[in-house]
C-alpha cells in the first residue's frame, strides 16, 4: 500500500512529541511499521500508535517537519512493512522514550498487559493515563519527577508471561540479560532506505530489520553481535551505537 492522506489532527503529547492523525485507518500487526513520506522532504520509518496516527519525536529535519504538520496537510504512507509481534500472553511492555508510543497498539491487542516505562522526565511517559486503565504501570524517570528515579532497567525483572521491549538500543541491550530469552521480543531500529528487504542497509548482524524484523525474538537478538554495538549509517559505513 502506498497512498497519500490528509492530516486531520496534530496532538501535542510532550515538548518533543506529537501524534499526527490522518484520514485513514491502516490495518497492521502491532510492531509492523510504515514508511512515512512527506512529498519533496523525505521518507522515514515510523510505527503506528493508532490505526490512523503516528507518534513522532523530533530528532532532526524530517521529524521536525512531520511534527509540525497541520490539518489539511498531506502525509504519504507505505506499508505496513516487516514482521510484528506474535500474539503475547500477559505481556510486560517495556518502553523507553518514543518507543512507548510504539507499544500502544500492542497494549490494546494484548490480554492483561503490564507496563514498565522509562524516560528522562514525566513528560516523556506517553499515554500514561491510558495505560493505567489497561494494567499496572511501573515508571522510572531520570529526574525522578514520576515513579522510580533512575533507569527503566532498574525496575527489572518484573513478573509476566512474556515481554516486549521497545526503546533506545542501549536500554534494550541492558534489558537483554535480565529477561527470559524464549518469551521476550525486541523492536530493533536501523537506518532504512528501501524498507522492503532489497538494499541491505538496515542489517543487524546480517538480518535485515525491515523484513526479518523490526520485531525479533530475544533468542535471535542474543546471537547478534552488532546488537547494542554498531549499525550502518546512510553510506553503509559502520557507526557505534
Amino acid at each position, binding site marked *: 500500500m502506498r497512498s*497519500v492522506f490528509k492530516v486531520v489532527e496534530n496532538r501535542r503529547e510532550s515538548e518533543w512529541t506529537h501524534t499526527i492523525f490522518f484520514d485513514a485507518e491502516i490495518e497492521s500487526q502491532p510492531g509492523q511499521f510504515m514508511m512515512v*513520506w512527506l512529498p*519533496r522532504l*523525505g521518507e522515514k520509518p515510523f510505527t503506528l500508535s493508532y490505526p490512523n496516527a503516528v507518534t513522532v519525536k523530533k530528532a532532526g529535519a524530517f521529524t521536525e517537519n512531520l511534527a509540525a504538520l497541520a490539518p489539511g496537510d498531506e502525509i504519504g504512507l507505505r506499508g505496513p512493512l516487516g514482521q510484528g509481534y506474535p500474539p503475547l500472553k500477559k505481556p510486560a511492555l517495556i518502553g523507553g522514550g518514543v518507543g512507548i508510543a510504539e507499544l500502544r497498539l500492542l497494549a490494546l491487542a494484548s490480554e492483561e498487559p503490564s507496563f514498565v516505562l522509562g524516560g528522562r522526565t514525566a513528560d516523556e511517559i506517553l499515554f500514561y493515563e491510558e495505560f493505567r486503565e489497561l494494567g499496572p504501570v511501573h515508571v522510572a524517570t531520570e529526574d525522578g519527577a514520576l515513579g522510580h528515579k533512575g533507569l527503566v532497567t532498574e525496575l527489572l525483572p518484573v513478573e509476566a508471561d512474556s515481554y516486549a521491549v521497545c526503546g533506545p538500543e542501549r536500554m534494550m541491550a541492558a534489558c537483554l540479560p535480565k529477561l527470559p530469552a524464549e518469551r521476550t521480543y525486541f523492536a530493533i531500529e536501523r537506518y532504512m532506505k528501501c524498507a522492503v528487504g*532489497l538494499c541491505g542497509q538496515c542489517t543487524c*548482524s546480517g538480518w535485515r530489520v525491515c523484513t526479518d524484523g523490526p520485531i525479533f525474538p530475544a533468542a535471535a537478538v542474543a546471537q547478534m553481535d552488532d546488537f547494542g554495538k554498531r549499525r550502518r549509517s546512510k553510506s553503509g*559505513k*559502520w557507526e557505534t551505537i
Partner: protein
Amino acid sequence: MIPLPRIDPPLINASGILSYPEVFTAFESAGACLGGYVTKSVGPREKPGNDNPVVVYPPDGAVLNSLALPTQSAEDWERDLEEIKLKKAKLIVSVYGGDSLEFAEVTGRMSRFSDAIEVNLGCPNKEPGEQTIMESIGQNPALSAEVIERVRGETDKPVIAKLSPNSDYLAVAESCMNAGADALGCGNTLGPGLAVDIRSRAAILAGTTGGISGPALKPVNLRMTYEAYARFRCPIVAYGGIETWEDAVEYILAGASVLGIGTAFMRKSTHEAAALTREIWEGIQEYLDGEPMSAIIGAAHRSAEGGGSHA
C-alpha cells in the same frame, strides 16, 4: 580469458541487493541456494547516495530505485571483507568509480578478497548534480574499454563487464571483451523511469527518476543476454526479473550461465528468500532432468538456426 569461478549452484544475488557481507552470511546460514554473492558496488570514497524515498513499486512488476550507489570508502570495505566468513559460496566484488583510474583503484583494493570482479558500467541513478556512470562511461565503448583495461591491470581474477540495457550494449560489450573482460553481466536496470504522485503532484523518488528492475525488465535483459551470447559466446551473468525457475531457464536458453536474483527478494524475510532460491534451483534441476546445465546454455539459438523459417 580467465574462466569464471565455479559458482554452484549457478545462482547469485544481484549487486545492490543484500549488499553487505554479514547479510550474505545470514543468507548462507538460512540455507540459501546461492553459489555466490555480489557486494553492493564499491566506490572509492564514502558517499551517502540519494535521500529517501529511494524505491517505489508501482503495480505490475516494476520497481524503480534511485539509491545512486551509496558506498562506504574502499578502506572501510576492506575492513568489512576481512571479516567475511562464507562457507562455500564465492564472493564477487562489484566496483565503480568516476573514471577509469578510480575503477582501477577500487579493483586493486578489492581483488584479494574476491573470486571475480564485476565492473558496474550501467547504473542509471545519480545524486543531484552528478553524471551517471551510464552517461559518463557506460554508453561510450572507448571509455568502457579504458575502464576494463585498467581494471584488468589490477586483478588476476575474472572480470565481468556489467552492461546497461539503455546503451548500445553490443558496441560497449565488444570493446569490453577486446579490452580483456572475461564475461558479460546482462544487465543493470532499465530506463530510468519516473513515478508521479497525483495527489501531491510530486515525483515520488527523491532522485526524481529511478532504474527499473523486476519483471518489467525481464524481456529487455533477456534479449540482451540472447544477443550478447549470439555475438560473443562468452560466459554471461544474467540479471533482470528472475522470480521463478521458468524465468531462470529462459535466461539459460538465451545464453546465461549464472543467474542473478534481485528484486524477487523484495518483501521476503531471509528464510522466505532462502526458500525462493531453493525453489528456483530445484525447478532448474527438474527441468534439466539429469542433463548438465552446460548442455542447454544458449539452446534457443541452436533451435533458431536448426528450425525452419518464419513460415
